[in-house]
């Protein structure tokens, strides 16, 4: 018998965790001398009150869906892929290579090419830590952290020495050609009131497809079953004839590929060139998103939306309440990771007891 109903596990506990994180963040805002409720109102209004706000909220959410799914897939095989930052940066490199080397006739073809390029580069960057974990037992968390730093050094080197436009001081690639311009929300649905420069683009749809794909993979395929089995019990999975090396490699390659895909949104869809830090911490947000979303694509989608709102709302907050700096976002993000990830048992145990007591009572 389960200790508590399923809805409590997937909805009530994350909700309480989120509430705790927001309450503590509110205390920080209060300490600074501003009203938390007013700050909240500004954030919500800034994120979803206008078409402009939605354009940014969903743009950020797209990034977080990709990185969140990446962390989630690795979680299912009980691996903590903390290297989303580096994998997404390499994904950006993949997008840049694809977009700059081929004169694409139409954006749809360019998008397919960029999807392949970013996923391949992201997966390749995850492949080395995965191989070391599978074959040599090197802890994947440490190696992926190291690979984040190596990726950022590599990217700086390439942008300064290889990709930089001759005569320009800025360490970035040339602007991608017109043929790779992804239609944004204005191009697709101008009647919704999006402005011409809105960053939300077709990558959002790709992200939704990725959610469905990950769901189908994890819960509807043999491979997904094997990944979950391996995540639940490694010895049990080996006993059942599942090859651990194969599971580690495949799940990490998928995870790295998903991280890399983030670049089609940020590099191809928004910046249209590769800049020095194309990821902007989204790889780490993916950890919070996957934890909150309980590693389920629907949960990841909703959590990514929430973080998209936080990021866009936070930008508005900085504008309207200058005493609250943008880094408040990092605090909220940290508290969400802390309460949903590390302090989960703090909430879970009392809630379980409560449900047990209620059951006995009835």
């Amino acid at each position, binding site marked *: 018998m389960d200790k508590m109903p399923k809805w409590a596990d997937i909805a009530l506990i994350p909700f309480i965790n989120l509430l705790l994180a927001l309450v503590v963040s509110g205390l*920080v805002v209060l*300490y*600074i*001398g501003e009203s938390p409720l007013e700050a909240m109102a500004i954030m919500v209004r800034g994120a979803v009150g206008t078409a402009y706000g939605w354009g940014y909220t969903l743009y950020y959410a797209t990034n977080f869906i990709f990185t969140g799914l990446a962390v989630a897939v690795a979680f299912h095989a009980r691996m*903590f892929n*903390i290297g989303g930052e580096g994998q997404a940066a390499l994904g950006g490199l993949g997008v840049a290579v694809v977009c700059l080397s081929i004169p694409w006739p139409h954006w749809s073809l360019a998008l397919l090419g960029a999807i392949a390029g970013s996923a391949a580069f992201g997966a390749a960057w995850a492949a*080395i830590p995965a191989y*070391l974990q599978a074959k*040599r*037992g*090197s*802890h994947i*968390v*440490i*190696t992926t*952290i*190291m*690979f984040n*730093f*190596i990726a950022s*050094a*590599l990217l*700086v*080197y390439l942008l*300064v*020495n290889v990709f930089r436009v001759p005569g320009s001081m800025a360490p970035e690639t040339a602007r991608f050609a017109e043929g790779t311009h992804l239609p944004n929300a204005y191009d697709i649905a101008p009647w919704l009131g999006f402005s011409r420069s809105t960053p939300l683009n077709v990558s959002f749809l790709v992200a939704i497809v990725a959610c469905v794909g990950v769901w189908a993979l994890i819960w509807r395929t043999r491979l997904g079953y094997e990944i979950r089995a391996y995540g639940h019990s490694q010895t049990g999975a080996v006993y059942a004839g599942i090859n651990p090396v194969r599971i580690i490699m495949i799940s990490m390659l998928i995870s790295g590929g998903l991280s890399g895909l983030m670049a089609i949104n940020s590099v191809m869809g928004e910046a249209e060139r590769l800049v020095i830090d194309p990821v902007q911490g989204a790889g*780490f947000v993916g*950890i919070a998103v996957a*934890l909150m979303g309980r590693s389920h694509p629907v949960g990841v989608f909703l959590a990514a939306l929430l973080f998209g709102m936080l990021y866009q709302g936070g930008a508005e907050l900085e504008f309207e309440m200058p*005493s*609250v*700096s943008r*880094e*408040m*976002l*990092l*605090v*909220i*993000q*940290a*508290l969400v*990771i*802390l309460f949903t*990830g*590390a*302090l*989960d*048992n*703090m909430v879970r145990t009392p809630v379980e007891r409560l449900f047990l007591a209620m059951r006995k009572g009835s």
Partner: protein
Amino acid sequence: MDFATLIQLLDSSIRLATPLLLACLAGLYSERAGIFDIGLEGKILISAFFSASVAFTTGNVWLGLLAGVASSMVFALLHGVASITFRGNQLISGVAINFLAAGMTVVVSDSWFSLGGRTPQLETSGRFQNITLPFAEQLQGVPILGPIYHDLISGHSILVYAAFLIVPLTWWLLYRTRFGLRLRAVGENPAAVDTAGISVVRMRFTAVLICGVLCGIAGAYLSTSLSAGFVREMSAGRGFIALAALIFAKWRPWYALMACLLFGLLDATGSLFQNIRLLGVSVPVQFMQALPYILTVVILAGFVGKAIPPRAGGEPYVKER
């Protein structure tokens, strides 16, 4: 390279190795007790901020150090509560602590000083001064040894000497005392320690708090000795390099010293020489910056001496019933 440049390079290596060494030893206590800590970075950062701001407001660098250590210990305690009391995931807790520090330092410093995530520049009284060792001036004229003593060994802040003294202290504590034996045992086989009637929870909390103290000193060194004030993200990945050094040293104190000096030397070389030519090939600065991480991956891969972490590391201890 002439002798003076060499001395300058080594001197700068020592300065840059000090925060790494303190953080590396901090991680050593925690991980030897079975608590993974990827939150070293965050604890360094929070301490750097609090020591700089308290040193600025009071004009007393020692009060600054105290505040920095206290703030770092609060974060260490948080890590302990999450990973020992509530048996949460230690890695996730560490990630949260890093973000909390990165965010809080900027949010609070903006509110206190309104300088865009910085503290004001520290005056002389707010910083640790460099100490001139006895006879350093008199011996300066002696060839070779004179400059080594005067420029390399003498003339660092007290925290540098403290950091280097903590290495033998840690070795002694770990391998020559009952406390050290228990600490190591709790990281290898907590059940055995528990059977012997020693509280696993208490040992682990002690280790985590020692880790907090040392990270606190590392942070204070960054903002009140190496530089004069706090700037956002000033830890700049040092917590992770320290983690790398810890693996490189295979969780042993003397090797930790060697690893940190090596990484300090790499850092110093990278910042002293913009262009390094090795065997006719110019080595990019970025490669020098990435080298500690690359070396760690190579070590982790086990091709050059395998690094085996404490066996119970990362797993919460659950008493059998």
